[in-house]
């Protein structure tokens, strides 16, 4: 379909290489297995393929139709039209990794701007060009800490209020690191406990303490005493953030955090069933040589013009090979570009504004829901745009009924712990109007009486 060769061209080319048929090109392949008969359908034209695939898309019910109160790590934010319009430029999306800087200044400068924006947003000194997502960025933070202590510290303390996918991913990633132990979030721990348990577990064996800010349940805690204790014992502290929340909240770098990770999906990246998203990874400058992933630096060319290049590449797999701190190669280039464009459009005022909208709307929803008979809001700390509601029936029943009214209900926290049966995690973004919240409350009452 995308192969331009004509019959004649094929003949001439085969002649040039001294062959008479395409089959001859594969004589090195063991004959027994050569040219298998694949049980695949025949090809389709673009029109036919599109029709089939449209049917699949239409078989879904998605947030273009449903009013979304579901968060838990992926958020239905509005994406300005300018973002996708720029991402659709072939000069961006059909380009490769910028290994030849002279003809990749577009990509390189965009990443440099991305690094700058995230460094500023998080208050950190160094930001890399991205990891796959928040969960793998968190795993890489653990690996960075492991190498920082040269393997001498083997304990990783995870808050039980860290996203379950992050905790699971960290466990998978660390299984190849001998003797390491992951603690703090075991199943017997109360997922809603305060940070005190975690703080008391920090000792000289701790390589890294990892908490989420706001946490998985939307709660915001003051991390000062945790950081103080960690630094006293010489441990590193990593914080997983929601970048939208940082429009309002203090930047983690400003209160002494060593590594910031997070998922950048809220920054102009569609939900897209969970991927591709964007792994944020930023650190203090002291950790720079242990940082994995690409880094873009500024330089000058032979004529003294400013330009950008991949730098400190000696950390990476293509040079260090088995001694590299990470194997990451392809990352999330285009998604980092989306985030850069999004933040450029919103700017100082816009990010503050969206953060406030999410905050106030969520608090309005919490206040209203808290007054409904049979429902109570369990969040008793400051929170950003997610909060916990205890419901009179199981969440799957409630959500089932809510979907008949065009709502995507909140996350069923029974998935986190049996102690949270009948508890729902509700998220509110700037896309939700007051009317939608009021209507949602009406329906909640109705479905709880069914």
């Amino acid at each position, binding site marked *: *379909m*995308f192969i331009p*060769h004509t019959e004649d061209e*094929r003949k*001439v*080319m085969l002649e040039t290489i001294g062959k008479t048929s395409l089959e001859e090109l594969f004589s090195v392949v063991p004959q027994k*297995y*050569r040219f298998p008969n*694949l049980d695949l359908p*025949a090809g*389709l034209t*673009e029109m036919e*393929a599109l029709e*089939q695939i449209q049917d699949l*898309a239409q*078989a879904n019910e*998605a947030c273009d139709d*449903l009013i979304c109160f579901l968060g838990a*790590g992926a958020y239905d934010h509005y994406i300005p039209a*300018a973002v996708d*319009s720029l991402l659709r430029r*072939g*000069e961006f999306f*059909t*380009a490769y990794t910028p290994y030849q*800087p002279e003809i*990749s*200044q577009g990509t390189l400068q*965009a990443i*440099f701007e991305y690094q*700058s924006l995230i*460094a500023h*947003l998080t208050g950190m000194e160094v930001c890399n060009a991205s990891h*796959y997502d928040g969960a793998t960025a968190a795993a890489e933070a653990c690996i960075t800490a492991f190498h920082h202590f040269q393997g001498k510290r083997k304990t990783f303390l995870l808050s039980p209020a860290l996203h379950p996918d992050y905790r699971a991913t960290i466990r998978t990633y660390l*299984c*190849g690191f001998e003797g390491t132990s992951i603690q703090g979030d075991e199943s017997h721990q109360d997922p809603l406990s305060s940070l005190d348990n975690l703080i008391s577990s920090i000792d000289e064996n701790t390589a890294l303490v990892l908490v989420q800010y706001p946490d998985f349940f939307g709660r915001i805690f*003051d991390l000062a005493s945790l950081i103080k204790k960690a630094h006293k014992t010489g441990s590193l502290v990593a914080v997983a953030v929601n970048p939208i929340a940082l*429009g309002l909240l203090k930047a983690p770098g400003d209160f002494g955090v060593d590594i910031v990770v997070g998922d950048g999906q809220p920054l102009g990246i569609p939900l*897209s*069933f*969970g*991927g591709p998203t964007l792994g944020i990874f930023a650190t203090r400058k002291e950790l720079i040589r242990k940082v994995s992933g690409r880094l873009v630096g500024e*330089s000058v060319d*032979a004529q003294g013009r400013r330009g950008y*290049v991949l*730098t*400190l590449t000696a950390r*990476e*797999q293509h040079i260090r090979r088995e001694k590299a701190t990470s*194997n*990451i190669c*392809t*990352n*999330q280039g285009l998604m980092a570009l989306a985030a850069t464009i999004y933040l450029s459009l*919103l700017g*100082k*005022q816009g990010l503050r504004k969206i953060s406030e909208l999410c905050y*106030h709307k969520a608090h309005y929803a919490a206040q209203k829901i808290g007054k409904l008979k049979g429902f109570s809001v369990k969040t008793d700390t*400051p929170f950003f745009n997610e909060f916990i509601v205890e419901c009179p029936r199981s969440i799957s029943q409630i959500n*089932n009924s809510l979907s008949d009214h065009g709502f995507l209900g909140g996350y069923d926290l029974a998935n986190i712990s049996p102690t949270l049966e009948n508890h729902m995690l509700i998220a509110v973004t700037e896309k939700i109007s007051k009317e939608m919240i009021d209507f949602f409350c009406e329906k909640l009452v109705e479905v709880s009486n069914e």
Partner: protein
Amino acid sequence: MSEATIFELSSPGRVGFQFPELDVPQFDLPKNLLRKDLDLPELSEIDVIRHFTRLSSLNYSIDKGFYPLGSCTMKYNPRINEVTSRLSGFSFSHPLQPIETVQGNLFLMFQLQEWLKEITGFKAITLQPAAGAQGEFVGCLIIRAYHQDRKDDKRKIILVPDSAHGTNPASTTMAGFEVVNIPSDKRGNVDIPALRSVCNENVAGLMLTNPNTLGLFDENILEIINIVHQAGGLVYGDGANLNALLGIVRPADLGIDVMHFNLHKTFSTPHGGGGPGSGPVGVSKELSDFLPEPLVGILEKGDEEVPPLYGFIKPPKSIGRIKSFHGHFGVLVRAFTYINMLGKDGLRKVSEYAVLNANYLMQKLKNNYTLPFDRPCMHEFVLEGVWKDIPDLHALDIAKRLMDYDFHPPTNYFPLIVKEALMIEPTETESKQTLDRFAEVMLKIADEAHNDPQLLHDAPHHTPVSRLDEVKAARDLVLCCWPVKDI
């Protein structure tokens, strides 16, 4: 003239995007948790559009021209992929929605799993890994889990050929193994005696790229796999070079136990300037219990009236989760679109023409450039970018000069076993005209190298910037738009 940064373009008070006014009461903000300043740039929408449009024009891309990067498979990225992946039923679907509401997504993923199984011969597939390197890591973890499950804990070594991509040994180390390098022989195959000498009960497996990074299909592939299996090890296949094998041979048929594929190489999903990619992993029946969770499967069989219910399953001995949610769904849609359109015959044509193009180009260049391994290649080949009579001219100089002729250079300095390597992979979407033009230019550059080498040393001359000082970049680290004091 360099492009200003968004921070330099910023003008106080400008706003590029407006939100509706707050329609609910204001609640108290937790004062001690608020940030004082937020120094992001302030730009209007036209500023943003212009800035990034101008940046894009500084890039080379497949849309602009030939991009013969070996092992990257820079084939044309079909526009229809950009339409299907953006269908709102897909792009607005939340990963945690009830499965009944996303059967379209789940069917697509299930079907893609089935198609990839059929193409490669593997019995089970995970679509979760975010990229090839992550797929390799998953493969290593599966190998580890397999041996642990058999209570065989002596196997601490993975064998990696010296021609391997750097991600191979890096992934191996991350999984807790030790790397032992295996040399290649004079014909570019894995050195069999060397392999035999290290294959013992301490070897967990061999990571093999076939065709290898020299673009050569190993002439002893079955023997190599047999040697490793006899010693009780598994064979991992790096599928970066799968573009040579579609409809030609199924890697699982050859005996490979676990393999990753790069959807952003073989299956036309775009490279995006450094991702996102997708690195699904296929395994043999014996390894299918160890795949990461979640896989997509059929939860309830359908019948004539009712379609099956698709959902997520956790393999019984799963190595666990390797990232959040389900994988790069947006990328999977593109690969699905591609396979759907190409069909059985189209896929085979891909490999036939990829290999034809590479051999044709190799034939046109071999008289003017040294071919370290003079045998028919698969979808790529490697030249030495150096001539004995001009020792101070390097592959780098050839690469930079190619830019003056509006070509992206081939991969440089990889694989490490060829000195001054130029790895060339044309892909099947390039026409004979393009290949002829490229060959013409390469010959012209060979000529320039001998008669006017300064042209190469000072290249590129016609690009937005000339050679950049990489030493300065690393020594005077500037990683942000404002000074980061004393790194």
